[in-house]
């Protein structure tokens, strides 16, 4: 744990080696989130690179008191991906897309270049209830606020927090975390 805090401090001091370690820890997750939004592996690769360049250039603006480093990256990634979906190119190419939820991406995942985790995770998302799938998608992949998620899912605002706790709990118990 202290390890990660030190890496982040070094990254903020523009230490390339430290940044490489952080990159290796999170690049796939960041790419996964972007891919869930833009649904195109090539575009995802481009945006992922932009996100990590942006994080490097804005290293000084990160502060641990504002949230987790991973969460900070997630935010940059979602914003970059959503910006892309507003572009003209994206609207034209979108018509051919069929997948919608991260679950669909996992289900259609090509096992050849997938991480070993993906195979196990496929089973996980089968086991998660429909509400959990939607809730996790909105809160973690899309960055919805509690209010936005409650409106989208037609769920009372007060239950979002506890329901999400149960959903993440299910995910953790299957992963053994």
């Amino acid at each position, binding site marked *: 744990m202290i390890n990660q805090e030190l890496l982040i*401090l*070094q990254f903020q001091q523009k230490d390339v080696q430290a940044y490489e370690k952080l990159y290796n820890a999170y690049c796939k997750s*960041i790419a996964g989130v972007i891919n869930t939004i833009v649904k195109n592996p090539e575009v995802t690769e481009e945006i992922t690179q932009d996100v990590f360049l942006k994080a490097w250039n804005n290293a000084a603006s990160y502060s641990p008191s504002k949230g987790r480093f991973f969460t900070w990256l997630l935010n940059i990634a979602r914003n970059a991906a959503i910006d892309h979906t507003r572009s003209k190119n994206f609207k034209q190419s979108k018509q051919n897309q069929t997948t919608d939820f*991260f679950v669909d991406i996992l289900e259609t995942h090509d096992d050849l*270049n997938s991480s070993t985790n993906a195979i196990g995770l496929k089973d996980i998302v089968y086991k998660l209830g429909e509400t959990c799938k939607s809730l*996790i998608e909105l809160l973690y992949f899309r960055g919805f606020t509690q209010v936005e998620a409650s409106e989208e899912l037609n769920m009372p605002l007060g239950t979002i927090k506890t329901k999400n706790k149960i959903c993440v709990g299910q995910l953790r118990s299957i992963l053994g975390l």
Partner: protein
Amino acid sequence: MCWTIAFNTRIVKMNIKEYIASGILELYVAGSLSEKENEEVHDAIQKYPELMAEVIAIEKAIVLLTAATNQGDSYSFDAIKKKISNEPKVIPMQKPKKNFWTYSGWVAAFILGGVLVYTNFQNKQSTTMVAGEKQQLEEQIDRVKNSLSQTEKLLEIFRDKDIISVPLAGQNASPSSYAKVYWDKKTKNIYLDAKGLPTPPKGKVYQIWSLKVTPLTPTSLGTLDNFSADANKIFTIKNSNNSEAFGITLEPAGGSETPNLEQLYALGAVRS
């Protein structure tokens, strides 16, 4: 900070398990809390390791899940490295300050000269000088000579090309602080110039850490107990570690087992 204290007592009262059960930590990792709530959770997880462990586990689950939705080939850091290595590296360097020891050689020589003239004068005044007085003067001269040779020794150390110099930049706890480590690998000593650190508050000491990055292992090199009394703020410390970085934290008197990163004053990596 009144609200922090009120908040912390609240947590103890409501008990850590309830705090975990509330689901706030899951939303913290998602990034869907308000700025104020984020700060509160951050304070709480710093204080209670149980909460920190919970956040790490939640984050790990989300990292795994999100990574599984990536369909691209394995990502290499090289492309990013190329782009970020082009920009000029910013090494936070302090303007060279004329430190005490820059001049102290001259000051010492001047005092020594003065003392000699004075001794001579005294001799002329009275050839029957009391033995006690004479001895006092001799001691004085001795001290000045010592200080001069110490200064010379320091200059020698700082000018030695085999000595690695590591600038430590100020961190969150005290951004305007700085320090410099001169590391002599042959004698396994570091010379810490700590003139850029503020005087520690009562009951606190600076503790020096040697850090290995992978896996991260902080090793204490000791505390600067006589910080306020030390005139030139240069400390000689034994270091037989294979250090990759040096850090300075503020700790309770007597030092700590592990560094308190919230109170990290200065940090710098050894350039290989």
